[in-house]
C-alpha cells in the first residue's frame, strides 16, 4: 500500500462516474425493455458481490451462505407483495379468503404470526434491513468470538444455506415451498408488472446499487477498512495491538448481509417472484464467483464481474447450453489459477499502464478497476 487511501479520490470518482454513466445512461439507451430488465436482475446479484468484496476480499471472511441473506430480503419483500396481492376480493374462491393461495392449499386457515408485520410497507422495509443484520450478528458473534475463520466459516455458512433451503421447501404452508412466492402484482397499489414499472424499478435499483457502492468505498477507505486488511493478513498482530478482531468481523459480515438483502428485495420487485432456488449452495457459490471474476479487492469490479459472468451465461446458454457449465467451471479455475485479481487485476496490469502512457499521466496510485476491460468483455459476451 503506497499511501493511505482517502475516501473518494479523483480516481474513484472517475471510476464511479463511469459506472454511473454505463448503468444510468448507456444501458437504458442501448437495450430494449427485456434486456434492460435482465440487466436489472443481474445488478441485484451485484449487491451481494459488493458485500463479498468487503467481507471476503478485505476481511478475508468467505461466506458461502450469502444466498440466505439474499433470501431474507427477497422473501421479506415477496411476503409484503403477496399479502397485497391476496386481498379478500382476489382470493374469494379460496376456503379462507385473504391469505396467500399456497397457505390455503396447505390447510392453513389463519395468517401465521411472522407474516403479520408484512402488512405494513414501512415495517417491511425496516425488516428487510434489520432481519439480515440481526441474523448475521447472531451467526457472526457465535463464530468470530470463538475465532472460527477461513475454511470452517465457509463450510458452516454453506451448511446454513443447505438448511435454509430444506426448511423453506419443507415448510411450504408458510413459505410457498419449492415454488416460492409467486404471482406478485402491486407495490402499494402500483402495478410492478408493466414495462413502465420495470423501467422505473431499473433506475431505482441502479441508484441503490450506486449508493451501496459509495457506502462500501467509505468503509474501505476508513480506518475500519485498513484494520480489516490488517486482520486478514495478520489477525494475531491486530489482536495483540488491542483491537477486538471479532467485532470488526461481525460488523463487516452484517454489512455484507444487509447489502445482499437489499439486492434480494430488488430482485423480487423486478423479477416478480422469489424462489428457494436462489437460497441454496449453488447460487451462493455463484455469487462468490461474480466477486472473484470482478477482482475480489475491487468494489466496482464486483459490478463488472457480475455483469460479465451473467451476460456470458445468458448468451452461452442461449446458443450452446452444453458448453455453459464447462465455461463456468473453467472460469472458476481460471480466476483462481490464472488471474486471481480478476478483471480489476487485468485492468491494472495491462490496460491502465497503457492508457497512462498514452495520456502521459503521472502514475497515480492504481486505484480502481476495469471499466473498459469489463465493458469489452460484456460487449463481447452480448
Amino acid at each position, binding site marked *: 500500500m503506497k499511501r493511505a487511501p482517502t475516501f473518494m479520490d479523483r480516481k474513484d470518482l472517475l471510476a464511479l462516474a463511469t459506472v454511473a454513466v454505463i448503468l444510468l445512461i448507456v444501458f437504458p439507451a442501448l437495450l*430494449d*425493455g*427485456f434486456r434492460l*430488465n*435482465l440487466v436489472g*436482475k443481474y445488478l441485484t446479484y451485484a449487491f451481494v458481490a459488493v458485500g463479498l468484496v468487503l467481507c471476503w476480499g478485505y476481511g478475508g471472511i468467505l461466506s458461502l451462505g450469502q444466498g440466505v441473506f439474499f433470501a431474507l430480503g427477497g422473501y421479506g419483500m415477496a411476503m409484503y407483495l403477496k399479502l397485497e396481492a391476496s386481498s379478500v376480493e382476489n382470493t374469494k*374462491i379460496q*376456503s379462507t379468503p385473504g391469505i396467500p*393461495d*399456497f397457505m*390455503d*392449499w*396447505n*390447510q392453513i386457515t389463519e395468517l401465521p404470526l411472522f407474516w403479520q408485520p408484512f402488512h405494513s410497507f414501512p415495517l417491511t422495509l425496516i425488516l428487510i434491513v434489520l432481519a439480515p443484520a440481526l441474523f448475521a450478528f447472531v451467526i457472526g458473534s457465535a463464530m468470530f468470538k470463538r475465532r472460527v475463520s477461513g475454511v470452517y466459516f465457509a463450510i458452516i455458512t454453506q451448511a446454513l444455506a443447505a438448511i435454509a433451503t*430444506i426448511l423453506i*421447501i*419443507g415448510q*411450504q404452508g408458510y413459505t410457498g*415451498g*419449492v*415454488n*416460492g412466492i*409467486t*404471482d406478485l402484482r402491486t407495490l402499494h397499489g402500483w402495478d410492478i*408488472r408493466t414495462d413502465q414499472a420495470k423501467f422505473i424499478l431499473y433506475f431505482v435499483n441502479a441508484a441503490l446499487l450506486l449508493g451501496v457502492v459509495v457506502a462500501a468505498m467509505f468503509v474501505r477507505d476508513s480506518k475500519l477498512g485498513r484494520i480489516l486488511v490488517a486482520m486478514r493478513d495478520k489477525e494475531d498482530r491486530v489482536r495483540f495491538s488491542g483491537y477486538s478482531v471479532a467485532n470488526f468481523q461481525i460488523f463487516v459480515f452484517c454489512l455484507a448481509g444487509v447489502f445482499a438483502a437489499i439486492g434480494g428485495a430488488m430482485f423480487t420487485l423486478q*423479477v*416478480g*417472484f422469489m*424462489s428457494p*432456488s*436462489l437460497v441454496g449452495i449453488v447460487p451462493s457459490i455463484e455469487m462468490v464467483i461474480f466477486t472473484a471474476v470482478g477482482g475480489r479487492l475491487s468494489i466496482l469490479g464486483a459490478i463488472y464481474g457480475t455483469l460479465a459472468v451473467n451476460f456470458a451465461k*445468458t448468451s452461452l*446458454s*442461449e446458443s450452446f*447450453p*452444453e458448453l*455453459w*457449465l464447462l465455461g463456468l467451471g473453467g472460469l472458476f479455475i481460471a480466476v483462481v489459477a490464472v488471474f486471481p485479481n480478476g478483471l480489476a487485476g487485468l485492468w491494472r496490469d495491462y490496460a491502465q499502464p497503457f492508457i497512462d502512457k498514452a495520456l502521459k499521466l503521472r502514475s497515480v496510485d492504481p486505484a480502481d478497476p476495469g471499466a473498459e476491460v469489463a465493458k469489452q468483455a460484456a460487449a463481447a459476451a452480448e
Partner: protein
Amino acid sequence: MASQDDRPQSELRRRLLMGMAAAPLAGFLPKAAFAQTPPTSAVNTTGLAVTDTEVTVGILHSVTGTMAISETGSVQAEKLAIEQINASGGVLGRKIKFIQEDGASDWPTFAEKAKKLLVNDKCAAVMGCWTSASRKAVLPVFEQYNGMLYYPTFYEGLEQSKNVIYTGQEATQQIIAGLDWVVKEKGAKTFYLLGSDYIWPRTSNKIARKHIENFLKGTKVVGEEYFPLGHTQFNSVINKIKLTKPDVIYAIIVGGSNVAFYKQLKAAGIDMSKQTLVTISVTEDEIDGIGGDNIAGAYACMKYFQSLDNPNNKEFVAAFKKMWGDKTVIGDVTQAAYLGPWLWKLTVEKAGSFDVDKVAAASAGIEFNKAPEGYVKIHDNHHLWSKTRVGLAQKDGQFKVVYESPDLIEPNPFPKGYQ
C-alpha cells in the same frame, strides 16, 4: 430450407394472394404447403413470428442441471411431433420452426427465457416446463405477454389459466381411479403415504388421504412422511413400514431419491407380491435408473405406458425409437409432451388463426384421435379428458397394463371435498 429458391415463389404468392383466393397455385408451391395457405395478415393479427412459410414456436425445458434427467424425454417428444407435423404439411400451410431455450433447472431462468421467447422471438406457442415451480414462475409471464403454454407434466392441480393447456393429468385424475382400483382389487385397508418434500407429492397425498378417509369405506392412513429432494437414506422409514404393516405403500418420491428408495426397499426384503406398492411418480424413464429388478411388482398409476396396445401407440413408439435410438424409453410425461404440438396444430386450424386469444378460445373441445394414449379431448378448464391406467412394473423396465378406467375421466383441478 432452401430459402433462395423459396423467395420468388413466396413473393409471387403474396402478390397473388392479395388479389384472389389461394386455390389455383398448386404448380408454384412446395407440395406440403399445398393444402390451403391463408395470408399471413389474416392469421396473425398480433405480430407473432409467422411468415408465409414458417411459424415459430418455443421449446423451454431444462437441458442442464438436476431436472435435465426428467426433461430430456419431453424435448425429444416435442421435436418428434414438430417434425411429423411438418412432414404432413405443417400448420395452416406453414412449417413449424422451433427455438429451444434451456431453463437450466432454475426457476428464475425459466421466467427469463419464457419472456425472451414471447417478447423477443414472438413465439406463437411454447411447449415447455416440467416442475410445478417452473410453471408457477413462467405463468405470470405468459399471462402478461399473452402467450400460449403447453405443459406436459402430471401435476397437483389447483391452477387453471387461459394461457396454459395442461396435457398431463391433474392430481385427482391420476389418484382417485388408482385408489379405487387397489381397494377393490387388493382389498386394501391401510395405507402408508410417502413423498418427496414439495408441493406435488404433498398435494397429491392430501387428495389421496381425503379419498381414503372420506370417500372409501373402512380404509385408513397409517403413516405419512416426506423427505428432502435428493434424500438417499430410507432405512428408517422402511422400518416404520415394517412396524405398521400397511396393505399399501403409496409412494410419490421423485428424482435420484427414487433409485435409492426402491433399491433399499428391495434390499430390506419388502416383498411387493405381498405388500402392494402404488406409485404415481415412476414412469419407464425413472425405471431406467432404478433398474427393472428393483421395482418389478410395483404398480404405477397414470394415463400412459409405453406398452399400451393400440395402433396409434405402436406407430408413435416406432417413430420415437427411429428418431432417438432403440434404447430410449417413453414415459407418461414424454407422451403428454408429444400431444402439445399436435393439440396446438389442431386448435390453430380450428381457430383459423395463430392469434393467442383465438387459439385459447378455440381450445375447449379440441379432440385428438391419433394420441398414443388413445382419444383425448380438451376440457373447458384447459386440462385433458383422459383415461387412467394401472401398470404392473416388469423386470424389463416396462409396465403391464392391468387396469384401464372404462371412461375418460373429467379433469377437476379444484376438486370439492379434497381441499
